[in-house]
């Protein structure tokens, strides 16, 4: 049967001031009617540019499609006249984009944005187009669709906007739907909703789709084929089962190894060492060679072609050996290049020091409300209850993971503990001294001992300061040492976090994302603190870099006896690094306990839903498990539901949940596992 889409040797380049960027370097694949495929890669892998090039959506200039053919239903889209190509876009091939916040036109109603494509391609009347739009919105599960056609995008939540984006893409019943990281910007539970929606839609409409993602887990039980891209090449292309069970490219293997396993206590993460590829060099050798553990001389001489290896297409000279190892660590270890073995021999992960008698941070009934002002005189009419009554302790030497979806108040909690915000109510103790209500001077002095690592390594480093002055700033502020001893300390710190101390006078833009996050970590460590709040420290990093940073944080904790509050939305990473985990929902902690007991026996329905929404990078397990998909969105923290705040989305909710606010109760072994749920008993 003739494939629906056949891409042959597609080459896309960007001509920039800094030279040519080799974004896509000759990729080929094909897709049958109704087939689904994922393209997986990190930033700069060319995965987005690759699909945008199919319907010439890349900006020209600076972009240029240099070579290749895109045969779609028998025609080459790249040679089609613009007017013909336009009739393919939206009608036969349509797209859903990554960021639902910016992908819809803010000044047009969603009704207009939905109907305009229908009027364009189907030549139907506006009334008919509106009717069809309502049908599509109902199909993607937008409540009250008919009445909401005249609303503007900002009146919808992120998840709802992405549903609208999907409805828009499906309006003309395309043969091929392309999703360019359609769930990356969404919370895990919303991501799970969208993934389930896609599965249903494909069953119902039978279109082919390409799903672009950086997360191997998301697509494990969603697609049939997976293409892994690195530096503009497809390095591996296989059916989803084959790819997960018998990966043949070292990069695929590395990606799989750097994702923590959520079942069973893990060994140390194996990161992919090195930095992302430089796309300014014309590729003449295997682009992954500099980071590859299995590199041989031949890899540095030529680009390995994408070749068939027992049902797999792999671009690696050692594909067969690696494939035969079938992810067996012992067999793989034998294949590692001798020179790289030292690096591979990782320190065994020593278990956490469980001498946790001593409380380092104590939080009592912490509240952080932000006023909402309205009206002519800006009277306060309410408050966003970002954090609404938290009680917990952080023991010396432990890592407490704080998880929840966006808007649950987890970052606010971190800032309130450090007194970066002035809490509305409640007390925070640090080393038995109360911080809330302490004088400015005392808080400043205490900050030496409490530091923060921020989420975005691009925005949190001052671009006009050198790395040396960024790291050394807190030393200067706290008058620690003299100029030369400070310089020495900065160099020490840089070495400690794995940066070359010779780069002390460089500026942040000269570093990659992962390296910048190391700078941020070194800055936090400068004053030798006891306690660090890490606010989503890996969320902005690529998968292969995340493992590097998490390992570093874990090593530092053991070496320096640090205590972390690790804030994140990625549960699998949280489990990997944390001793105990606190789950937050709408400003409250709903469950807190040892990492193992939370993961093995979650007692709160919200925790259960969160856990089941974690993407599992294994198609068998992913399809076996029962997914709890929460309905709807998180309610507004300005107006939280009565009783249990989760009852509006909870499958187990009964009358009492609507009425009474559940308190944290202890379960299981001693005081270790606490849950705020009226029905927790039934899950024990």
């Amino acid at each position, binding site marked *: 049967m003739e494939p629906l889409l056949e891409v042959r040797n597609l080459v896309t380049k960007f001509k920039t001031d800094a030279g040519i960027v080799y974004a896509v370097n000759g990729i080929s694949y094909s897709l049958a009617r109704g087939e689904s495929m994922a393209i997986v890669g990190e930033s700069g892998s060319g995965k987005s540019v690759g699909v945008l090039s199919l*319907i010439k*959506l890349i*900006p020209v200039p600076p972009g240029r499609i240099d070579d290749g053919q895109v045969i779609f239903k028998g025609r080459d889209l790249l040679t089609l006249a613009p007017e013909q190509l*336009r*009739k*393919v*876009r*939206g*009608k036969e091939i*349509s*797209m859903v*984009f990554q*960021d639902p916040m*910016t*992908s*819809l*036109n*803010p*000044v*047009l109603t969603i009704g207009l944005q939905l109907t*305009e*494509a229908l009027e*364009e*391609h189907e030549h139907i009347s506006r009334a008919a187009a509106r009717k069809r739009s309502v049908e599509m919105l109902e199909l993607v599960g937008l409540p009250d669709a008919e009445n909401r056609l005249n609303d*503007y995008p*900002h*009146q919808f939540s992120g998840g709802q906007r992405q549903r609208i*984006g999907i409805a*828009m*893409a499906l309006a003309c019943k395309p043969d091929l739907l392309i999703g360019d990281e359609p769930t990356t910007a969404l919370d895990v539970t919303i991501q799970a909703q969208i993934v389930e929606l896609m599965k249903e839609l494909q069953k119902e409409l039978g279109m082919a789709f390409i799903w672009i993602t950086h997360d191997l887990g998301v697509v494990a039980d969603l697609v049939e084929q997976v293409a892994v891209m690195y530096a503009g090449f497809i390095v591996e292309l296989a059916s989803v089962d084959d790819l997960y069970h018998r990966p043949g490219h070292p990069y695929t293997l590395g990606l799989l190894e750097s994702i923590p396993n959520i079942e069973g206590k893990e060994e140390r993460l194996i990161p992919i060492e090195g930095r992302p590829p430089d796309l300014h060099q014309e590729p003449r050798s295997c682009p992954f060679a500099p980071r590859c553990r299995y590199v041989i001389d031949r890899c540095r001489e030529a680009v390995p072609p994408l070749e068939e290896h027992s049902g797999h297409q792999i671009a690696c000279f050692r594909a067969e050996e690696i494939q035969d190892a079938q992810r067996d660590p012992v067999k793989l270890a034998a294949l590692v290049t001798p020179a790289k073995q030292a690096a591979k021999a990782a320190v065994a992960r020593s278990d956490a020091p469980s001498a946790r008698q001593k409380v380092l941070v104590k939080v009592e009934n912490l509240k952080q409300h932000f006023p909402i002002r*309205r*009206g*002519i005189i800006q009277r306060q009419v309410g408050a966003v209850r970002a954090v609404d009554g938290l009680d917990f302790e952080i023991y010396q030497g432990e890592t407490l993971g704080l998880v929840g979806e966006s808007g649950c108040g987890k970052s606010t909690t971190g800032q309130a503990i450090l007194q970066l915000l002035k809490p509305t109510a409640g007390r925070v103790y640090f080393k038995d001294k109360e911080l809330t209500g302490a004088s400015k001077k005392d808080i400043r002095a205490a900050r030496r001992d409490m530091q923060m690592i921020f989420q975005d390594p691009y925005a949190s480093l001052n671009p006009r300061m050198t790395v040396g002055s960024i790291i050394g700033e807190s030393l200067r502020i706290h008058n620690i040492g003299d100029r030369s001893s400070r310089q020495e300390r900065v160099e020490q710190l840089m070495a400690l976090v794995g940066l070359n101390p010779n780069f002390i006078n460089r500026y942040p833009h000269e570093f990659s994302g992962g390296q910048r996050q190391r700078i941020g970590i070194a800055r936090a460590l400068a004053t030798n603190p006891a306690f660090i709040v890490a606010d989503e420290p890996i969320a902005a990093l690529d998968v292969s870099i995340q493992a590097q940073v998490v390992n570093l944080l874990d090593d530092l904790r053991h070496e320096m006896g640090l205590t972390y509050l690790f804030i994140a939305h990625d549960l699998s990473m949280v489990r990997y690094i944390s001793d105990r985990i606190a789950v937050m929902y709408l400003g409250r902690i709903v469950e807190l306990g040892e990492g193992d007991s939370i993961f093995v026996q979650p007692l709160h329905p919200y925790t259960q839903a969160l856990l089941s929404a974690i993407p599992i990078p294994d198609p068998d397990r992913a399809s076996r498990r029962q997914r709890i998909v929460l309905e709807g969105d998180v309610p507004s923290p300005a107006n939280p539901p009565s009783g249990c705040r989760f009852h509006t989305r909870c499958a187990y909710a009964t009358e009492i949940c609507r009425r009474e606010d559940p308190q944290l109760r202890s379960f299981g072994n001693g005081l270790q596992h606490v849950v705020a749920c009226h029905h927790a008993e039934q899950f024990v």
Partner: protein
Amino acid sequence: MDYAIRRILINIPILFIVTVIIFLLVNLAPGDPVDFYVNEEMGVTRDDLTHLEEKFGLNDPIYVRYFKWLGATLQGDLGFRYKNGDDVAEVLFERLQRTLLLMGAALLLGVVIGVTLGIYTGLHQYSIADFLLTTLSFVGISMPAFIAGIFGLYFFSVKLGWFPSGGMRTIGKPETLLDLLHHLVLPAGTLAIMYAANFMRYQRFSILEVKRADYIRTAQAKGLKPRIITWRHTVRNAILPVVTVIGVTVPNLVAGALFTETIYSWPGMGSLFVDAVAARDYPMVMGIMLVTAVVVLGANLITDLTYSLVDPRIRYD
């Protein structure tokens, strides 16, 4: 609605502060209105001056004078000119109309030309027209109204004789609209150049910015006609920031209008202001400053309200 009311009410305290500042500035400035009457040839005596001071109420304490003035002003009574006893409000109103005509014509020209060229050059980035117009806009921006005015006067009036060199109408001819417009071309055009250039650059930049937006890519992916992508999606969004720029430009325009009026002897507030300051005609100076402040506040108000109409995100504030 809430927003509109709040936006309007905020002007009340601002206006009050403006009146205080105007009053203080004028009254604390050195010099005295009676100085104007000092004329030895006519034999004005000290007594006459004292009499005048009495008559104008200049001997009262400053706050008394302020509240007297404020009270009268609130009732629309701006007082009488020291110079000739004309009613300030009456004279001002007549002059204000003429100045507003000049400003309005200039603003309209500036917006129409600037926004149109800005949209064109933004949509055709790197074309020859874009290059030429962008270069020209530099010239326009760096040329103050009084230089442009002198050039305009020299070329189009003195050399080419296309337009009259000054005034509002041809003396001895019937007052026709055409005649008025004929007189308006040079002063309004002069004033408009800088604003057209300015608006063009903002509009061009804004178009370039919006062209890169995610929602434009969405529109392209939907296979819409280029015409619809351009007008419905790109231009609509790109005009929003320019609305603000136009609004904040109006105070500038007032200053520019004063210069231009002087060059082209346009009988508006500009020449009146110069006269009044020279004569230390307090009521007139204060009246002009007050009216100018009201015009500026009004322009900003209109800008903000317009913005909330065209941008749905502001409405539900």
